[in-house]
């Protein structure tokens, strides 16, 4: 039995043209926990996240070496079906990206791609995941409205519901609260926390306090190198590396 929801990096190097943006990264992200990747801007956090679901494929000059192992399979192996890899991971981006269609269709988008057109199957599914993202009560009477009429905080929770609806094992978040007001941020954070018992969650953030609020594990990335990784209580409280300490105390940012 393959253990689902595990994510490991082996000797991962990423280049943009001649620039090396990620340098020999080795990392095991524990399942059913919330791992936060911190580091100053430009350190390669977002690139790292994009390696996990092969969105880097879309960038012409990007080149990946090494292995990203999901469920005991290197996703960069030739012959791997990319769409199925991506289906295993939900993505929350910096600004919520609602698809140009109704609220309902946003959530049903993923299942429909997989060939599920049956309303009797889709209806409860949409409700289930909208509830899970805490949006159901707010939108249940206007499921057929265009999704871009929602407030930006609601949009981000809709993106969460949409990501959950493809039944992923892993949730990736690229500073998912950076465009939101404090109230909505808290709301999204609360839902992420409640989801971590069933999902492996990887968040990129540059807000240290957010890392402290959410993280079980913390990875500190600096200039493309993984400096430190460990339980949040260790990395954030008593970091071993001086660079981590400098970042946490606000000397480098």
């Amino acid at each position: 039995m393959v253990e689902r929801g595990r994510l490991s990096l082996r000797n991962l190097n990423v280049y943009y043209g001649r620039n090396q943006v990620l340098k020999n990264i080795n990392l095991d992200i524990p399942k059913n926990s919330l791992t936060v990747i911190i580091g100053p801007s430009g350190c390669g956090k977002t690139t790292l996240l994009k390696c996990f679901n092969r969105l880097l494929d879309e960038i012409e000059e990007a080149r990946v070496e090494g292995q990203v192992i999901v469920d005991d399979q290197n996703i960069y192996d030739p012959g791997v079906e990319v769409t199925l890899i991506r289906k295993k991971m939900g993505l929350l981006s910096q600004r919520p990206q609602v698809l140009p269609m109704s609220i309902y269709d946003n959530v049903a988008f993923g299942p429909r791609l997989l060939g599920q057109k049956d309303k009797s199957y889709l209806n409860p599914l949409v409700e289930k995941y909208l509830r899970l993202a805490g949006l159901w009560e707010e939108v249940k009477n206007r499921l057929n409205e265009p999704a871009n009429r929602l407030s930006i905080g609601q949009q981000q929770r809709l993106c969460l519901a949409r990501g959950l609806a493809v039944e992923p094992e892993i949730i990736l978040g690229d500073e998912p609260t950076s465009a939101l007001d404090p109230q909505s941020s808290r709301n999204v954070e609360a839902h992420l926390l409640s989801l971590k018992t069933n999902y492996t969650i990887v968040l990129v953030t540059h807000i240290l306090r957010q890392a402290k609020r959410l993280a079980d594990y913390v990875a500190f990335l600096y200039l493309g190198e993984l400096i430190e990784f460990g339980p949040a209580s260790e990395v954030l409280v008593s970091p071993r590396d001086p660079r981590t300490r400098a970042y946490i105390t606000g000397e480098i940012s």
Partner: protein
Amino acid sequence: MKKEKVRRLISASAMLFPLLLTVAILTSLVLKALPIISLKSLPTLIFSSAWQPQKGHFGLWPFILGTLWVTITAFILAAPVAIFTSIYLAEYAPGKLKKILAPGLDLLAGLPSVIYGLWGILLIVPFISKYLAPLFSSYGSGYSILAAGIVLAVMILPTIINISVEVLNSVPTELKEAALALGATKFEVIYYVAMKKARPGLIAACALGLSRAFGETIAVMMVVGNVPEVPHTLFSPAYPLPALLANNYGEMLSIPGYDSILNFAALLLLLIVLIFSLMSRLYLNRLKRRS
């Protein structure tokens, strides 16, 4: 302070110039067309296919049909190719290829219609008469609706492509990534997300191509045959309205009513353009209000 006022006055009138020009063109054509409209009824002028100016028969129907056939043929040929090409350029093509193709497309968008017409005469017309038409057991000179349609289609390709590529490029990468992250294939991302988001722009690009095809004169009249008969097939020659004007305007003084009917033809062209612009404006406004 007084200087500022004068400047303001001058620039305000310059701003109003386009408005006044539109009105001026419209009124002068209406005034010039009135004699023939009052002489014959509007439906006769538009729907009669009898065109014998010497005998006083002024039915524009063959010309109107000619215009429609040619424009629609060109559009049907050009639109799918242009949209697919712009999808390739915006979503698939490697950066280097785009850099090579962009100046080429620019050049072709700027090429004068007489060049396209010349190309039609040299290549398309003989191709149709020698190879294509015989396949459908139709024998003729090759100067036909199809020839005009192909030449026009090629002419509007760069216009539609340039705008569509721009429109598709304006769809945020993050949005496409969001769809990819849900496990969508590239086709699904383009079809369900990018093209949906870009739809107003793509429609605008096609509308622009359509209106350019509609008013094109020289390239069309060089290859369309200019025979004032109701066309039956794509291989028939035709005589679109702009070609009618180009061939006869300015030399029509001796035949009574001729001058007025040609102005009426120009008025028809203008009105169609006006209605077309109004419709697309209304469509865009409706979209703007909805979002």
